[in-house]
């Protein structure tokens, strides 16, 4: 990875050079260096496999330049350059940005923040920036060995063909950015590192599946994640030979992973200024309305103490701040980048898109403009999108897991869902997914039996989940959603009724 100091020096030098360019009225330079290390697990007892299937890294560094022409503040051009931080590369980028100039009548100028920003000091406990690839490889193999050992010791039968599958990965994500802009008083920098680890254990002969996940910001947490293999196997063994209930309408508890998945695929994309401006939000026309239960509050916090996606500045150079999206059920905030914020505020159909409950003086801010690439690392070649960081759903009047299950009395505990998509488009709010593991049948207010993985499909609407839950969980638990840029901390919710259809084995 390129050092923060190198990025900062390039940004400073570029700032000086661009400030001397006569026809440029304003400019923004975004530099990034990112490193994504992945050790991917793949063990299958009955088929040839390598154990660690992919042991790899992806490195990318570069810068993006946006210019605004002095002659017309709506004329703006953009270019990016990979791998080269020399003055010649800046000259090339400037020429390319000039060649790409368009006149966008809605261009609001560059994100501005006149106050100097205090530099963040790195927390010594967050030591993953200097972790080696060997530590990631060691953790992945240790997790695999712990899974194999746990299976050998704890499997109830000596199966000739157990169909044991151990999958998942240990991923270490590190990024550094430096931003220079004519609208900022200084070059601003940020760096972050975190890992996510996820292990899935399937035992096909027992029709069993269990998962275990961890996220963290330190080497010690990474080392502790070696237990995930064992945890996943033990959970799968606990869930063997699950029941296959018939299709129907059920009371359910949705655990933290399903809630995180539904939020990720169905809700977060709707809680952006861009979604409101394009009238593609599931909450179009309902800003200021009560859209969730009054016990629920949803926020995004890049500075959260427990958060692993820690950011002090956005990819537009603005201070990263907590954004309250849903306050005790009421839609009060949106994730936004600078452009989309102004596009919505100045939209001629703004009142119709926001709805009658929206306050006249909106307190929306561009707190969430991030440029992310594969694996949610900061990348120089993306345009700022409105993206969350650490998404936290908290609940008042929450109850324990035992009480949630008791509230359902007879139904299903859903611990993991899969392939949750807005089946009729984001705005419609309809979704469907299948229950893929970590789940139970609830009888007489208790977890009575495991639920067979992949035997039921949920067909529902987001209002059924969030508008009037039967009971809400007390504790917000961490949850990972595959491919999502955000990390989630969410409670379980007990739901009055969801329609479940059967999935029959082929």
């Amino acid at each position, binding site marked *: 990875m390129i050092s923060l100091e190198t990025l900062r020096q390039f940004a400073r030098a570029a700032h000086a050079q661009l400030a001397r360019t006569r026809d440029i009225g304003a400019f923004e330079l975004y530099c990034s260096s990112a490193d994504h290390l992945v050790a991917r697990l793949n063990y*299958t007892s*009955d088929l040839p496999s390598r154990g660690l299937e992919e042991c790899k890294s992806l490195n990318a560094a570069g810068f993006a330049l946006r210019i605004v022409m002095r002659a017309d503040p709506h004329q703006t051009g953009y270019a990016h350059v990979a791998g080269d931080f020399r003055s010649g590369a800046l000259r090339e980028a400037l020429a390319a940005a000039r060649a790409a100039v368009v006149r966008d009548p809605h261009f609001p100028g560059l994100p501005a923040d006149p106050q100097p920003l205090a530099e963040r000091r790195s927390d010594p406990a967050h030591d993953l920036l200097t972790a080696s690839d060997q530590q990631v490889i060691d953790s992945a193999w240790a997790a695999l060995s712990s899974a194999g050992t746990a299976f050998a010791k704890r499997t109830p039968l000596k199966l000739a063909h157990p169909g044991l599958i151990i999958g998942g990965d240990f991923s270490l994500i590190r990024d550094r950015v430096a931003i220079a802009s004519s609208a900022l008083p200084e070059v601003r920098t940020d760096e972050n590192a975190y890992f996510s680890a996820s292990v899935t254990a399937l035992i096909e002969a027992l029709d069993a599946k269990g998962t275990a996940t961890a996220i963290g910001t330190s080497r010690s947490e990474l080392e502790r994640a070696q237990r995930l293999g064992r945890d996943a196997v033990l959970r799968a063994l606990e869930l063997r030979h699950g029941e296959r209930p018939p299709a129907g309408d059920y009371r359910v508890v949705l655990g933290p992973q399903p809630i995180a998945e539904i939020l990720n695929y169905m809700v977060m994309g709707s809680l952006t200024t861009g979604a409101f401006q394009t009238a593609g939000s599931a909450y179009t026309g309902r800003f200021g309305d009560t859209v969730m239960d009054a016990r629920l509050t949803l926020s995004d916090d890049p500075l959260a103490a427990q958060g692993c996606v820690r950011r002090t500045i956005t990819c537009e150079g603005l201070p990263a701040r907590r954004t309250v999206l849903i306050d005790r059920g009421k839609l009060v905030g949106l994730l936004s980048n600078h452009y989309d914020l102004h596009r919505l505020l100045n939209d001629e159909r703004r009142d119709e898109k926001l709805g009658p409950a929206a306050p006249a003086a909106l307190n929306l801010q561009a707190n969430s403009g991030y440029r992310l690439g594969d694996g949610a690392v900061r990348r120089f070649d993306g345009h700022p999108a409105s993206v969350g960081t650490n998404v936290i759903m908290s609940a008042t009047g929450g109850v324990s897991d035992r009480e949630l299950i008791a509230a359902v009395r007879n139904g299903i505990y859903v611990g993991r869902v899969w392939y949750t*998509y807005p089946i009729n*488009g984001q705005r419609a709010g309809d979704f*469907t997914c299948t229950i893929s593991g970590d789940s139970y049948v609830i009888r007489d207010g208790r977890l009575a039996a495991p639920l067979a993985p992949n035997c039921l499909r949920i067909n529902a609407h987001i209002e059924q989940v969030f508008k009037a839950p039967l009971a809400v969980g007390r504790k917000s638990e961490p949850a990972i959603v595959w491919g999502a840029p955000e990390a989630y901390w969410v409670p379980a919710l007990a739901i009055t009724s969801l329609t479940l259809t059967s999935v029959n084995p*082929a």
Partner: protein
Amino acid sequence: MRRFVATHRGALDAEMRFEVMLARSASAHDGDPRDSAVSETAAFGVKVTCGGTGGVTAEGFTGVEVGRLALRKGRLMVELEAALNEALRRARWNVRQKIAALKTLGTTAPALARALGVEPSNERATIPATFQRDPRDALGAEMQQLCREASSAIAGLGQDIVFNAVSALSELRHELFINSAGAAISQAFAYSQGDVYVVAQTADGHQETWDVIGDQRGFECLREGSRLELSAHPDLHSFALELAGETRALAAAPPLKPPDHEVVVVTDPHFNALVAHEIIGHPCEADRALKMEAAYAGRSWLLRSTRENQLGRPIGSPLLSACSDPTLDGYGHYLYDHEGTPARRTIHIEGGVFRGFINSRATAAALGVKPNGSARASEAWHLPLVRMSNTFFMPGASDPAAIVSEVERGYLVCGNNIPSIAESRENFRISARRVYEIDHGRIGRLYRAGSVLSDSKKFFTNIDAIGNDLRLFAIPNCGKGQPMQVKRMSNGGPTLRSRARLVGGDR
């Protein structure tokens, strides 16, 4: 590569994929220009296979986006050498940890000890890209004008259009594959793609619609349209206006409220493209079948184990056949995959009987079959995965109009929207853009927010008519892998008639 392997202890094989890419893009929202850009980059990925005691082998990989540094030969060689050494170090450490794990697990991990015996490619070839309008030409202003005019025309259709976005892209990509076995394959690809997104709102409801046109051609396919036999499409302007018209009609249509039982469904080629993608293509990927995707995108209903699977068994109507064919002229066309294996047609289903998977060299070795050239990465800095190419249901003999007119009561399902599939793709719910009632052979009322829900094998088995109207459609955004790789391909099929449940919209 040969020298590296010869001079580094433990190294068995090494390979490199190098690519340079240039893309021009433009977009417009609601008739106003939004952006225009030229992107240039270069990247490589190197893989080293290492051997240890007892015949244990393991791999290490390093992917680097070098960008403009690729213009400096000396610097590029330094970066490449560093990456090879890093990949080798990872491979050695991986071998060491694998040997340790085998000691810990003893005989409980027999599959881990088995070497796959993968033979590297030694093919050599040079393949040019096909285009009339070179993506390297100064197309920016023309591309911007095309987007702006199309977006403006949509905005002018009426107040019921609340948002629209039109974008265009033209890209040239040059790839080089070399390895220590002597392979050297140079391939170039031109891609051009137009995307249209429209949101309409009426007093009766709302509708958001997105669709894409794309070819392995130059900008001409967006400016003038395409007359390719299997994937003809209009120019971007006409395509955008057609989609906007459809979106307006749907916003005024009621949501589907279907009966609570199985019905006759006639599905059109565009809808069937997504069925072919999700229910044929993905479960026919050998890495998925071999459980390598189990923690992410799931397994395959076609292979539970090497002893228990659907190979050679009926999984659908005798009318049904399906294949992947990268040699055809479609968005998923290529002649060599990213392991240097020549591309060829792979039959998945023949007369209703399941025949085989698309594979990589390693998964072919694991299954004891020949590699068929289906390992592809989205960029050189990613490792190749088993990927679809042009994957489709093969055509039948029936006239599509007759397939509809023979239905007494049923539904015509047109255009794909969004899929959701079960873990092994043994079940799916796929939403359509438009659903029409069929009453005594006549197409009736239009509905929005309808989807087809079925177990996969049952849907295939219930097929009783297949049209002669095969079409291929560009799929620009197929995600797979960790981290996610987004790949272009094409999928399609002819009109099909089967039985399934329909599900309507809640709002």
